[in-house]
């Protein structure tokens, strides 16, 4: 197939080289103490560290705003990334400008790194449209709800880059539950054989809705699964932004270098419910949550920056203010976004207009006209009686 098979040949000679480390790579303690590791250098200057911290703060604030918007009836449902800010922001940070991200539906942090307007993504949860950002402008694919399916898209895209001799890398996010699905399995099989430059980034947030990891898999760790596909399995403390960055960076550069795909398991914790429709009190305790809160990723980087005098009160205050402004902008945009134009339903089904759809569009247009003539509020739609969701 493709020229460089040296990585695969090496792995076949010594499959243990693919195995994940016994413990996830961890560089930063909760109190901010840094343990440097020559195998995982953090090649980030001070400004970048502070900027990453700022992005995590914005992510958390906008995430909170989205939950509020759901409570206010503006969103039907929302899947929070609370507690996973480092796993997302630090991993996306490790990518190059031209690299592509294929998200699931919980990747607000990665989206913010890519400058995607959260309000555009929230269309999906508000039910006004299904997405509204340009994937090519942001190199950020559409949010994907069916579990694990996007993993194949990232793999195909990376195969294309490889065939095209384009040194870009794709990164696909999925979860611990997603590793049980068939598509990620097929994707890692394809990527291994094709040497596709794709990073399989698993955020192990411990739960697939209510099902804990112990009932999801009997594998020693999720990263062990990589070995079966001929991929190296890496593990990092996903609440440690520096470890997440260093591990991801290494995998990305390796893939860009033609050495093939890799899987990363970022061990983290989903602090919020699965979505706003979920009730986690039925399956986990307050004690468990309190313990998990001790490993908070944002507090950890903050402690580190404060220790090193890279963050003062004024800067912190400025970040909080900025985050509040971003949240307000998102809230305003969501409130102000018009409900979809019903006739637009027919506009994007195919690139070439179809006569049958044109006729159905005309049926709906006539219905709308009749409603308008009869003075019925056309926005009142009889469709959804409650904003529900998974």
């Amino acid at each position: 197939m493709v020229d460089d098979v040296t990585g695969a040949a090496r792995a076949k000679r010594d499959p243990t080289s693919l195995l994940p480390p016994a413990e996830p790579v961890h560089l930063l303690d909760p109190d901010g103490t840094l343990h440097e590791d020559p195998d995982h250098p953090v090649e980030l200057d001070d400004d970048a560290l502070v900027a990453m911290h700022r992005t995590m703060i914005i992510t958390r604030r906008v995430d909170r705003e989205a939950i509020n918007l759901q409570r206010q009836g503006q969103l039907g449902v929302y899947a929070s990334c609370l507690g996973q800010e480092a796993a997302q922001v630090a991993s996306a940070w490790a990518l190059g400008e031209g690299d592509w991200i294929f998200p699931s539906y919980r990747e607000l942090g990665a989206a913010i790194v890519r400058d995607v307007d959260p309000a555009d993504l929230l269309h999906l949860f508000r039910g006004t449209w299904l997405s509204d950002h340009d994937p090519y402008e942001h190199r950020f694919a559409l949010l994907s709800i069916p579990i694990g399916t996007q993993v194949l898209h990232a793999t195909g895209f990376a195969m294309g880059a490889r065939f095209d001799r384009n040194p870009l890398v794709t990164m696909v996010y999925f979860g611990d539950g997603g590793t049980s699905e068939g598509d990620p399995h097929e994707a890692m099989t394809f990527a291994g054989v094709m040497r596709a430059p794709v990073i399989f980034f698993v955020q192990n947030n411990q739960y697939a809705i209510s099902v804990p990891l112990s009932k999801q898999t009997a594998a020693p760790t999720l990263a062990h699964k990589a070995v079966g596909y001929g991929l190296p399995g890496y593990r990092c403390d996903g609440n440690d932004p520096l470890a997440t960055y260093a591990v991801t960076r290494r995998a990305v550069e390796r893939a860009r270098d033609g050495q093939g795909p890799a899987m990363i398991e970022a061990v983290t914790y989903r602090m919020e419910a699965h979505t706003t429709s979920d009730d986690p009190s039925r399956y986990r305790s307050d004690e468990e949550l309190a313990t998990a809160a001790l490993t908070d990723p944002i507090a950890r980087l903050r402690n580190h920056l404060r220790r090193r005098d890279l963050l003062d009160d004024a800067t912190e205050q400025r970040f909080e203010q900025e985050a509040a402004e971003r949240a307000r902008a998102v809230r305003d945009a969501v409130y102000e976004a018009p409900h979809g134009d019903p006739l637009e339903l027919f506009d994007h089904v195919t690139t070439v207009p179809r006569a049958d759809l044109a006729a159905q569009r005309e049926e709906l247009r006539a219905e709308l006209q009749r409603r308008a003539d009869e003075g019925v509020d056309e926005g009142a739609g009889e469709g959804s009686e409650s904003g529900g969701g998974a």
Partner: protein
Amino acid sequence: MSVTLAQAINRALADEMAEDERVLVLGEDVGRLGGVFRVTDGLQARFGDERCIDTPLAESGIIGTAIGLAIYGYRPVAELQFDGFSYPAFEQLVSHLAKLRNRSRGTLRLPVTVRIPYGGGIGAVEHHSESPESYWVHTAGLTVVTPGTPEDGYAMTREAIASDDPVIVLEPKRRYWMKADIDLPVAGPPAREAAVRREGHDVTIVCYGPMVRTALEAAEAAEEQGWSLEVLDLRSLSPLDTDAITASVRRTGRAVVVHEAARTLGMGAEVAARIQEVAFYHLEAPVLRATGFDTPYPPAKLEGYWLPDVDRILDLVERSLAY
């Protein structure tokens, strides 16, 4: 010169690949072997193994990676080796390939062609003789076409690959060896237009894919009974050429729809519905359906009892004429 359906499709693939380097062929055994029906024969030798790609054995993987390749900018032609093995790819086809353009509000284009050999009549083992067209036709966003002649095999394959939308090409595998005396390349009418394969004035036989030849044989046999059958080849199942169907029924007043797929919610149901919606007053008889039965596809030794054939078509023609 004499060309089989399989050769015509092979030539269409080669011509598209030669014209546009973004066209890729991928699937199980499509490369070195040239496909189990030899439809992709010689493509890997000519275009290399990065343009005619032997994939791992995973149908969802084939369609899912084709989607990624298309987003990157390629024009993938994915082969699903048999009808019965299209089901593992169902989610990628229905939830992603069909919907991505709409979900992206028109930003993404998905120029993906999915070739599926389909239908029975070759004595194959279980899962190798199915007619899954209703699943794809029922899915908004997919164009579904099926050639019934070698000329169409060539022209419709090229049209599918040139389309910026996902197209499912259902290839009637029992007709792969059917020959026509043609010189390739040939141009055909757009796939969305149905074609009258034989003119007649008593009953319209609406058919497609593998049943086009069967319907023509039935029309031939009907002549001996003094019945004049018009044979309409739908060519495209989605969109459906309602105008051509109803124009024919206006002439004949009668219609029998023929397909291998099971009857319930098969294409016959949709064709009958459209005829009565549009041409009710022209009907002299109810629209009848000569189809497979609503049972799982039978074992090979019994498929002759299950598949519609000339006799079943003529029985229904007689019933139609009795009204």
